[in-house]
């Protein structure tokens, strides 16, 4: 039974909480550390940095990822940058301001103390990564450069061309490689976690499948850390990598971990629009482009088919600048995305199907010249050119919102531990820090904060009481869970129906995009909740998964992930329906201000919704636990970017 949800936020003034907590946290002595085996699932920014740092501290770490190398984790694809409160630009930035922007950007649906800590350690991340050799952009004087991102009026984003995620991940990967060579970390690439094992209520192991050989194996540890990223692929089309999944966190949920705010998804405003049925993924154009690009659509529907260069300035609607004069093109993501949907719904969208808006660099090019723009965004313009065969130096880019990030994730306390003792969750996989909308350049910050500077301090609070309690994989719980995993794999292969995996995934994705996407309402969500269980039934009757279990079988991998999405989608819709307010990226059409902005209901919904698994389907609903959010340092306001 789960009692009252405790965030375990330490007492004291906001700016002293983390320091006090560190002072009061338990320690594991160096000679005891090597007695602990820590299982880290995921090798992205969060998992990679955590595994490397824990290894460095002397723990024995086993790290798992599904790709063939830890360097390929999806963090590699992040483009734009990472925030920190260095105030190198002398433009008035501070830890408090970064904290405030992040919590306001999240529409006041995150835990104050966590967000403050994140802002506080942000500066250490920049120091750490620079020392590792991350080649951040520099000015001619040799000092680090910054740029601006949405939702902020200061310039605090550090970047490495348009490949910031790649460079930060390679930094973490190299640190990880060093530990692998030293023998503190053992790496298991191409090994997918398929279930979590609890012994006496504590997370003590995982069951995995080796994706090359198909071997199913149990691993025991003293603690389990999930760093498995986000679940945006539940929508079928998203900017996530093909393999991104909900399996690890969803399986943990089914074993009793609470899932926090599953409906909070981020739809990113600047992605390359959908071109056709064949498409397998969408591509982001970094938000940093909004520093210099101006977003517009024609004022009149008749002009939409004209080439953009033939539409005079007077006939263009720079709608973000018009609606949000003080933030303009740098309005936060949820707001910019909804504004794009709105103008397209009005019939003023451009490109195929009228689902696109222009992102125009003509003004910036004439102000700064083409070379400056090339230096800032060259690789993004190249990506755009490769995909669309259009030259954005000559003609404006066409962009449209796409699913990008999931703020929801497993519920964790201030120590980043879930309600299951021993199960820690870091990075995009947890629910913390970003509330109902994440600001740009803050996911990289959170992943690395969790891995380098938070978990290494908070994990001992759990471990200190656990010496000698690691079970062996011969324990009956391991045998039981392992047999369940085997049975599920077998069942997937045995259906042998007539429908492809793609067809199920696409159908689910379209349904969610329609009913639980940029705008949601009670009727639509109820409809989705009727349809999802039927689709799931059909999946288990009609799907065809070719091949065998004991070999390299990509269809089987995908089948397991899609099967989990088909259950998880229901949880998202239940959460979206229950949260009868609008906040951040969760826009319930029933709740809007007169000018169409998200209308929060702080009285009833200033809380985290954490769901406990009870069973799936129309009859059994998960149980809701609420963690009320208390705000001491900030004043809850209607977010305004006008």
């Amino acid at each position, binding site marked *: 039974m789960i009692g009252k949800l405790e965030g375990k936020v330490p007492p004291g003034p906001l700016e002293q909480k983390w320091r006090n907590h560190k002072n009061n946290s338990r320690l594991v002595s160096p000679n005891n550390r090597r007695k602990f085996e820590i299982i880290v699932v995921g090798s992205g920014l969060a998992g990679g*940095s955590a595994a*490397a740092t824990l290894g*460095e501290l002397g723990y024995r770490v086993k790290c798992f990822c599904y790709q063939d*190398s*830890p*360097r*390929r984790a*999806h963090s590699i*694809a992040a483009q734009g940058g990472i925030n920190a409160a*260095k105030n*190198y630009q002398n433009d008035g930035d501070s830890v408090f301001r970064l904290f405030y922007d992040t919590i306001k950007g999240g529409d006041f649906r995150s835990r104050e103390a966590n967000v403050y800590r994140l802002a506080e350690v942000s500066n*250490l991340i*920049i*120091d*750490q990564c*620079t*020392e*590792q*050799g991350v*080649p951040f952009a*520099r*000015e*001619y004087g*040799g*000092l*680090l450069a910054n740029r601006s991102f949405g939702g902020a009026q200061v310039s605090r984003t550090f970047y*490495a*061309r348009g*490949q910031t995620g790649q*460079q930060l991940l*390679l930094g973490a990967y*190299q*640190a990880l*490689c*060093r530990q692998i*060579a030293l023998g503190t970390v053992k*790496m298991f*690439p191409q090994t997918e976690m398929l279930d979590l094992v609890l012994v006496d209520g504590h997370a003590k192991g995982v069951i995995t499948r080796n994706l*090359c050989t198909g071997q199913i194996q149990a691993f025991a540890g003293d603690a389990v850390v999930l760093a498995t990223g986000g679940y945006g692929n539940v929508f079928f089309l998203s900017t996530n*990598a*093909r393999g991104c999944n909900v399996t690890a966190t969803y399986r943990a949920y089914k074993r009793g971990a609470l899932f926090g705010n599953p409906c909070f998804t981020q739809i990113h405003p600047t992605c390359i629009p959908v*071109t056709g049925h*064949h*498409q397998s*993924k969408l591509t982001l154009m970094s938000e940093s482009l909004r520093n210099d690009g101006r977003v517009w659509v024609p004022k009149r529907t008749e002009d939409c088919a004209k080439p953009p260069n033939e539409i005079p300035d007077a006939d263009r609607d720079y709608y973000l600048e018009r609606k949000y004069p003080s933030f303009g093109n740098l309005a936060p993501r949820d707001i910019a995305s909804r504004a794009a949907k709105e103008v397209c719904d009005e019939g003023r969208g451009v490109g195929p199907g009228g689902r696109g808006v222009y992102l125009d660099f003509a003004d910036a090019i004439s102000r700064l010249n083409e070379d400056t723009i090339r230096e800032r965004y060259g690789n993004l313009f190249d*990506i755009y050119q*490769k995909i669309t*065969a259009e030259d954005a130096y000559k003609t404006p880019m066409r962009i449209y919102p796409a699913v990008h990030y999931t703020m929801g994730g497993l519920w964790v306390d201030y120590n980043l531990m879930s309600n299951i003792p021993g199960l820690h969750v870091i990075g995009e996989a947890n629910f913390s820090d970003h509330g109902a909308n994440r600001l740009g350049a803050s996911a990289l910050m959170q992943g690395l904060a969790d891995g*380098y*500077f938070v978990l*290494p301090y908070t994990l001992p609070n759990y471990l200190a009481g656990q010496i000698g309690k690691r079970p062996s994989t011969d324990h009956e719980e391991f045998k039981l869970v392992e047999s369940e995993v085997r049975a599920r794999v077998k069942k997937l292969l045995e259906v042998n129906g007539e429908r*492809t995996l*793609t067809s199920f995934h696409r159908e689910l994705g379209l349904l969610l995009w329609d009913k639980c996407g940029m705008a949601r309402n009670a009727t639509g969500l109820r409809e989705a909740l009727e349809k999802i269980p039927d689709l799931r039934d059909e999946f288990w009757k009609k799907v*065809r998964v*070719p*091949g065998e279990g004991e*070999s*390299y079988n*990509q*269809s089987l991998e995908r089948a397991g992930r899609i099967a989990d999405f088909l259950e998880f989608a229901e949880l998202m819709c239940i959460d979206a329906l229950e949260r009868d307010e609008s906040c951040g990226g969760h826009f319930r059409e029933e709740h809007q201000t007169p000018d169409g902005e998200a209308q929060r209901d702080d009285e009833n919904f200033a809380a985290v919704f954490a769901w406990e698994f009870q069973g799936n389907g129309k009859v059994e609903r998960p149980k809701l636990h609420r963690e009320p959010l208390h705000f001491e340092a900030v004043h809850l306001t209607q977010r305004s970017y006008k």
Partner: protein
Amino acid sequence: MNFQLNVWRQANAKSKGKFATYEARNIAPDTSFLEMLDIVNDELTERSEAPIAFDSDCREGICGACALTINGQAHGPKHPAAACQLYMRSFDDGKTITVEPFRAKPFPLVRDLVIDRSALDRIVQAGGFIAARAGSAPEANSIPVPKHNADLAIEAAACIGCGACAAACPNASAMLFTAAKVSHLAFLPQGAPERTLRVTKMVRQMDAEGFGNCTNTYECEAVCPAEISASFIAKLNREYARAVLQRSVGE
């Protein structure tokens, strides 16, 4: 558009592989090469044939997972681009396209078009890092880095670890990959303390994995999706010579 595909099929490392022929029909020109394979795979599944195994993840040219030799060229005919950034509009309608895995001895085959590139990870493990313990880094702006060096560092650091360089090289040399990492870290002051040891160990590991020597054919540079310049190989050679010299004077 319609294409005939000539695809390498091999169940595992031990079995014998061979080419098999498939049709890709009604493909929209904006379909990516990998999406075209997805479509073929769905059709194979519907016909109860085993789909073609191939690796991919980001599908935007940054993770380095995709590794296909298309019509004899690593990553296909469009440069610089990874296989996932190739679109069918680059091919003539009705043509036959040959698809094979990256072939190099240090990359054992897993299945069909999937190979094992862990040799590249082991080269990095040998020394491709800066030992910087979390918590002990100095203030980031306390060590200014000339912009020129920082720019060179990121040019080298852009390597996506795909292994195309070794696959394209007649000697299966991984020099470009290794040179990129050695150069990236050598251009930065933070990389200086481990400079000698790093290059020595990485080159030794490269040899131990069975990668061949560089004979300056520059096939690597031609196929590299990250546009890593072969001039970094010269940098690697200088770094290596410097390390040998330092060792020989008794350091």
